[in-house]
């Protein structure tokens, strides 16, 4: 029995000596960048990092930049020059310059997924302006924590339903999927607000091919059954607030031509009216407005052969997988889309319709 504590002691000692627990760095010796900006300059990646620098009293935000053959090289150079190690796991937003997005981000995103340095949950955003002015404007914000950009896309904070949310893994998936593309939000630094949202970039195979505006992005989000709660729709007759949305799809494939019938069910709350419209008039106006907007957007993205709505997903069981590989080039342009909106006015507010 006496030998057991001795064995235990030896085991404990070896655990300490062999494990290398001194390799870990405490949180205050790590730099935790929140935003990473990537641009391409003369075949060299230009990396910007926004790093909150916790001081004992005030939080300061630093912007550091470096160029390198690859992202890892640039980060490694930065890490060597900084007083603490850069830990990319906390990067929440990756800002890609528009030029690079147009050129293609396939390798960049594959690198992120492979190295696991950056969380696959990080959001990917396209910057409409050059990375450098974007970051210097971002740094002029008053937010002490430097989380402005992250808060802008945070569903618990500043996100609105007309802003697309696409994560690194979703972008990676879209690059390798035959039936699905993604939209990335396009932003630039604003005049009165820190950030200005300009719409979304349509990304096909990792390359930006088209732009859609915020109103159209709302429909894309509705299509993915993201909550559109809180979006205000203005029509001639009235202004309504969307409080709930669901989608229904029916797909058919007749004579090599795919047909899709999609129905958007909306619940809205009445905010303002102009004149005395009836319940039905308001609903019809809303339905026509959204249907027209959708059809306009759909013809645009269909032309660019980018399936950002993921419509190919509804034909996975109907088209053989060999054929599905040609989905974007052959089937998708032939797709007949029927989009219907059904709106319900859930609440007319304190004043009933036609009361005043």
């Amino acid at each position, binding site marked *: *029995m006496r030998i057991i504590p001795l064995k235990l002691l030896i085991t404990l000692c070896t*655990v300490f000596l062999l494990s290398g627990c001194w390799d870990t760095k405490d949180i205050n010796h790590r730099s935790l960048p929140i935003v990473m900006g990537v641009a391409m300059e003369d075949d060299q990646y230009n990396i910007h990092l926004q790093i909150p620098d916790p001081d004992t009293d005030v939080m300061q935000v630093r912007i550091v930049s470096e160029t390198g053959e690859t992202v890892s090289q640039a980060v490694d150079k930065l890490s060597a020059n900084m007083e603490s190690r850069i*830990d990319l796991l*906390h990067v929440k937003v990756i800002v890609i310059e528009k030029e690079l997005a147009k050129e293609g981000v396939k390798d960049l995103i594959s690198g992120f997924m492979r190295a696991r340095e950056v969380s696959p949950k990080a959001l990917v955003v396209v910057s409409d302006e050059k990375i450098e002015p974007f970051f210097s404007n971002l740094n002029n914000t008053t937010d002490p924590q430097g989380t402005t950009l992250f808060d802008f896309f945070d569903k618990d904070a500043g996100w609105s339903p007309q802003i697309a949310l696409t994560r690194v893994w979703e972008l990676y998936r879209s690059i390798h999927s035959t039936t699905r593309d993604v939209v990335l939000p396009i932003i630039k630094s604003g005049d009165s607000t820190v950030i200005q949202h300009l719409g979304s970039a349509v990304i096909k195979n990792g390359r930006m091919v088209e732009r859609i505006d915020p109103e159209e992005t709302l429909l894309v989000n509705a299509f993915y059954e993201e909550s559109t709660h809180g979006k205000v729709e203005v029509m001639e007759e009235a202004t309504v607030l969307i409080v709930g949305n669901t989608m229904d799809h029916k797909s058919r494939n007749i004579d090599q031509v795919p047909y899709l019938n999609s129905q958007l069910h909306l619940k809205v709350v009445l905010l303002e009216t102009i004149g005395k419209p009836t319940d039905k008039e308001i609903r019809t106006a809303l339905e026509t407005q959204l249907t027209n907007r959708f059809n306009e957007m759909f013809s645009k993205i269909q032309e660019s052969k980018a399936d950002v709505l993921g419509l190919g997903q509804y034909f996975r069981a109907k088209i053989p997988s060999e054929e599905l590989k040609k989905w974007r080039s052959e089937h998708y342009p032939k797709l007949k889309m029927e989009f219907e909106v059904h709106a319900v006015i859930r609440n007319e507010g304190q004043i009933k319709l036609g009361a005043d």
Partner: protein
Amino acid sequence: MDPFIKELKEKFVHSDDLFLHEEEILDVPVLLVGFKSLIDFTKTKVTLQKYIDTAISSQKTIGELLNEIGEVKEKDLEEAVSSIMTGKLLIISNSHRKYAVIEPFHNMLNRAIEPPTNENILQGSLSSFNEDIKTNIGLIRKQINASNIRAEFFSVGSEQKTKLSMLYFEGQADKKLVEKIRSSFEKNQDREINNLQNLAKSLGFSGWSVISKVNTTELPSETVAFLRKGRVALFVDRYPFALILPCFLWDMFTLENDRNYPIPLMASIRLVRIFGILISLLIPALYVALVAVNPEVLRIELALSIAQSREAIPYPALVEILLMLIILELIIEASVRLPSSIGPTITMVGGIILGQAVVEAKLVSTLLIIILAATTIANSTLVGIQNSLAVRLFKYVLVILASIYGVLGILGGIVLISAYLASIETFGISYLNLNYAKEGTKNG
């Protein structure tokens, strides 16, 4: 002088509280022998005189009288000595070759029955056990009016005899368990029992077990509840606790007194205790893991504010937390040691050190102070001091594993602790047993 008395005197040489009082009972010269410190001599003599008076009036002989008031024995030195040691009065007559052992009035050497000092109780019966084994068993009998309660006595030890008793409910307690305990006492008849470690040895348990295999309680109401569930209670003379066998993990979270509240309240109190063990085990380890190894798990806002609070702190997280935990253990230990009159001083000094000065001196972060406070408070919610001591020790295992392997290490540590708990068994009954009462009844 009688050689017997001479031998007796020699045996108790330098024992100045021994009295040898010469007296005449019914005109026969006798010697009253006993310990002044154990016997209330005046009261005993008055009562003895009453017996003598009735004996004179009914014309009894001295032999008849002694038979009536005590036990007459042959002159056997060993037995006489042990009778005197246990506080009996000996009446030795010079002429006869016999002596009588009489139960005298004892000096009051026991505490009264008092409220519990180690286990606080809210809205429940307040009497607690004291040092006298008979009082304790009496308390049990008073608490529950049942004819099937059995109290077996054992006397163990070679030099100093210790009285032990085993209480159980006939028909409720597992017969095999009772038999195993009985036989292990009989087998270890010569082993002296002065403390719980001795007792554990006697019962055949390893002394290296972190978790105590006997559950201790000083409340008769709790003990009776355990007995009713088929457990066995052991009493050791001069040890004011009932020792409950077998002991289970679930005992850490339950008190019988909880059942004096409505069921939802009882359930939530027990839930709080479960949170207590989780918090006191996990939080210090999580601090080390999240600060040193896996900061990516934290939300960015939290990560930044932790980084800010740790700014300019010289030690790594492990050293920091070990330093403070050890100071905290010292404070807890010191407040147990100190007399209650200077106890508050320690609390105050400790409070100042932990709460303010250490943070201001930038030795540890403010977050750590919160974590330490939560840990210590949570630890105290567990039932039974022996259990919270064990959890206090397990905490360090997790802290060290967390410092090496991070969150994964915590998981590994929990698996390790769970495996250890699962390995504990008492007389073949697993420590993790949740349904013993029902099974016990079935066996009985």
